[in-house]
């Protein structure tokens, strides 16, 4: 098991045992700033190597997936979960968007197995963050006036994670690998260590979701495990169609499978306030995040291997 995953388990265990261990929220913020900038810069370095136009097709396809995923889970949440419209829309938005933490874990996973993947993937992280939020708002509120939607879009685009990811992308793009070499001792070399600490903290937060989970019971649990597997298969298929490498397909599958717990909750709180945030966080953070980290990523890797062995690269 990857050591970063062990840190996650340490956090969960400490949380469940009600240990006094706490990470100051400022440490959490520092870690997420460093991780987001590092991920963005890595992607930007790669974009500088890549003719941008060649990626345009892939980008459009990925954005389309971001619009479609929440539309698929919404009816499930409404009908089988019997959730109020706002809650169903909000959860659908969480699952249609992505978790940067999960992305970092799959990158670490592939890295420690020396599996290559398209290094411009952070671009897809940025692209996937947003569409599901817009879909979620429309699902909850109907086709709200342009004013309202524009305000929400503005908020999402200027949220912390997008600004840091996009800022990192641009800096990586402009400065290139050589320019950023001097920044490696802060952003790139300790990446795994920073991720380990981040996962320790996420483990503590995950443990605190268990109470809610127990209250809302079986449906959330099932939804939180089945949706990522289902979405991963869509991501895998899309990756294959787009001609990604096995590694790239695993990353795209993991992005599809992951559920946001940073950008989307913040956006939903403002744009769909009547949705209960405890519900969506319990599912995305209390079920799906640990599922992906512990079981999902190896599973998607195995599935990708099967798929590519069976059909061959597209």
């Amino acid at each position, binding site marked *: 098991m990857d050591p970063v995953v062990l840190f996650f388990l340490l956090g969960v265990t400490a949380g469940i045992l009600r240990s006094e261990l*706490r*990470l*100051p*929220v400022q440490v*959490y*913020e520092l870690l997420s700033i460093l991780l987001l900038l590092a991920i963005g810069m890595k992607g930007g370095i790669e974009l500088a190597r890549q003719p941008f136009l060649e990626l345009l097709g892939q980008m459009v396809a990925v954005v389309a997936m971001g619009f479609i995923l929440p539309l698929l889970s919404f009816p499930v949440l409404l009908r089988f979960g019997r959730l109020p419209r706002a809650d169903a829309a909000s959860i659908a938005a969480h699952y249609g968007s992505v978790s940067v933490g999960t992305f970092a874990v799959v990158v670490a996973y592939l890295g420690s197995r020396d599996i290559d993947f398209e290094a411009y993937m952070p671009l897809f992280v940025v692209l996937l963050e947003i569409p599901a939020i817009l879909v979620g708002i429309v699902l909850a509120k109907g086709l709200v006036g342009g004013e309202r939607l524009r305000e929400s879009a503005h908020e999402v685009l200027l949220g912390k994670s997008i600004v840091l990811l996009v800022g990192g992308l641009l800096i990586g793009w402009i400065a290139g690998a050589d320019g950023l070499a001097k920044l490696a001792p802060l952003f790139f070399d300790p990446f795994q260590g920073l991720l380990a600490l981040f996962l320790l*903290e996420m483990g*503590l*937060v995950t443990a*605190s979701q268990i*109470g*809610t989970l127990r209250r809302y019971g079986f449906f959330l649990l099932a939804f939180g495990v089945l949706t990522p597997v289902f979405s991963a298969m869509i991501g895998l298929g899309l990756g294959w169609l787009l001609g990604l490498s096995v590694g790239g397909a695993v990353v795209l599958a993991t992005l599809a499978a992951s559920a946001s*717990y*940073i950008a989307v*909750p*913040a956006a939903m*709180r*403002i744009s769909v*306030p*009547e949705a209960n*945030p*405890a519900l969506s*966080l319990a599912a995305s953070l209390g079920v799906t995040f640990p599922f992906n980290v512990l079981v999902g990523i190896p599973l998607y890797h195995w599935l990708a291997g099967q798929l590519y062995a069976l059909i061959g690269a597209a």
Partner: protein
Amino acid sequence: MEQHPRRLLTIVTESSIESHLLRHIERWGAHGYTITEARGKGARGVREGNWEANRNLRIEVVCDDATADRIAAGLREHYYDNYAMILYTCDVDVLRPEKF
């Protein structure tokens, strides 16, 4: 020493709505505010403040009675149903009444 009665309105709520809330409060007539980071527990459960989604703010506004009422009414209308929030007011004396 000359004292001037005013009301101190204290709001404890989710930090995610900070910028919206402050814009509202100013629109409803507050001349200033003071914010401290907080955590706590209430009807909507524990808010540990160890993570962006569960941080609280404690916002204080010193103002006259009419403004306090306007703010309280506005909060009740726009925020009370959907957000973790409490609100209380108390009587205070200030030195420079023209500020509040």
